């Protein structure tokens, strides 16, 4: 049994090591995906930035007014929340179709399959980079410049990406086999969007049993890793602990699943 477990891990790791060598394919096609999407438009990929600005502006005004939070406080809050939520949720969403979208390539050339998952996260990393341009503008506009704590947002983003990656890896494999799952994940993310304090602030949640929707929401902890430092705070040790444990446990499962079913994927396409 332990032999078998070791060999599934080896198989998954071998594929991932091979991906490291074919890494340029992932970056190249990640760029290509973005270039393709905006090829004939004048502002190109900056449509990403523009769209996000409009959403942030509109939601900031509407919900800031509804919740009676001063705009100087609410606008940067919703800006950070939406930018990073977009990153993690589109990673997970598009992760479901990483393999199905690359069917043609998978069935024709032998390249490590993890390349396709990596391509998806790169693509979303590029979108994230475009969206991040909004952040300094918003912060400047409301006069809330981040202090040195902001540096800690960098390991935060990395840990967020590491966590996103294992979720994508599992989902990409399972969604090839069970196509319905893609839609279930979409719905699930939609619900999570409202359950996670993104549009609303955690302090508005009444004390008591309701707090569990924060404590047991891994996406909340991941979000806090990035949001707290940008607001001049440290993420709590619980935020870190949950995120790190999640990464370790998640990757263990992901490698197992991937190693076990890697060879089946072309047959399921």
């Amino acid at each position: 049994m332990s032999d078998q477990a070791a060999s599934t891990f080896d198989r998954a790791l071998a594929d991932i090591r091979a991906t490291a060598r074919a890494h340029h394919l992932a970056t190249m096609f990640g760029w290509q995906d973005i270039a393709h999407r905006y090829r004939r438009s004048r502002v190109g990929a900056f449509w990403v930035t523009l769209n996000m600005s409009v959403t942030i502006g509109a939601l900031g005004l509407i919900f800031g007014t509804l919740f009676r939070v001063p705009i100087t406080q609410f606008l940067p809050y919703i800006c950070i929340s939406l930018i990073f939520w977009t990153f993690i949720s589109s990673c997970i969403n598009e992760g479901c179709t990483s393999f199905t979208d690359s069917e043609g390539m998978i069935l024709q050339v032998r390249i490590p399959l993890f390349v396709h998952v990596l391509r998806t996260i790169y693509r979303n990393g590029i979108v994230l980079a475009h969206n991040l341009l909004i952040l300094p503008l918003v912060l400047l506009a409301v006069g809330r410049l981040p202090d040195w704590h902001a540096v800690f947002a960098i390991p935060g983003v990395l840990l967020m990406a590491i966590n996103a990656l294992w979720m994508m890896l599992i989902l990409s494999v399972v969604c090839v086999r069970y196509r319905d799952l893609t839609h279930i994940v979409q719905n699930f993310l939609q619900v999570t969007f409202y359950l996670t304090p993104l549009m609303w602030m955690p302090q508005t949640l009444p004390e008591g049993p309701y707090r569990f929707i924060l404590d047991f929401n891994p996406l909340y902890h991941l979000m806090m890793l990035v949001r707290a430092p940008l607001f001049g705070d440290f993420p709590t040790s619980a935020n870190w602990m949950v995120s790190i444990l999640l990464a370790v446990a998640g990757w263990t499962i992901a490698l197992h699943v991937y190693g076990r079913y890697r060879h089946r994927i072309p047959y399921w396409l």
Partner: protein
Amino acid sequence: MASIRLSNVSVEFPVFNAVTRSLKNRLLSAATGGIIDRRWDGHVIVRGLQDVTLSLGEGERLGLVGHNGAGKTTLLRVLSGIYYPTQGTSQIDGECVSLINMSLGIDPEATGRENIKLRAAIMGIPAQELSERIDEIAEFSGLGDFLDMPFRTYSSGMQLRLAFSTSTAIRPEILVLDEWLSTGDESFKDKSNRRLQEIVNSTKILILASHSKDLLLANCSRIVWMEHGRVRMDGPAAEVALAYFGG
């Protein structure tokens, strides 16, 4: 040393009800003639290959014949390391390139030059090697200034020229071909035929699936005849060709 060793390889495609639509295409194109069966757990499966044992050494020139759905494409995919056998083992040593779909990876909105890079990356040509060879590829395509135009503005002949020029820039150890790829107008046809012949001659192992007797006899020393996912006959090219195509 390039070599391929398949022992008792079987390939089974599961057919899940929920995905019948997408799989239907597959079945029609690749496995018609395979054997439809029901597995122990009730899933419908199609046996694409059954108990295929094949070993290819350096210098081998293998032809593959068989009616539609006999399992040629499936076998090509096993030989190029895309499908892992569901039963049996396959061992493939050597870098393998299949020229089945030359246009894979091409983005119609990108320029010809960008597409050369995309296509080359998929083929596994390292970026450094490509930068040394891109001019040669560009020249071979004969597209001149059109290389800086979007691919979609090309005529279909020009599109094929670009795809062909890039795809054949590689010198793989193992080459998998599904039919001979000659393309273009008369002048390009000669040039492309010569180029393809060059690759075919320089590759260490050639696997060529074809319906053309002359082509097979000209390029292959050995032919495998596939039928219903099994090897029906495996032997010297002339002998198998005689049996398969008739006198």
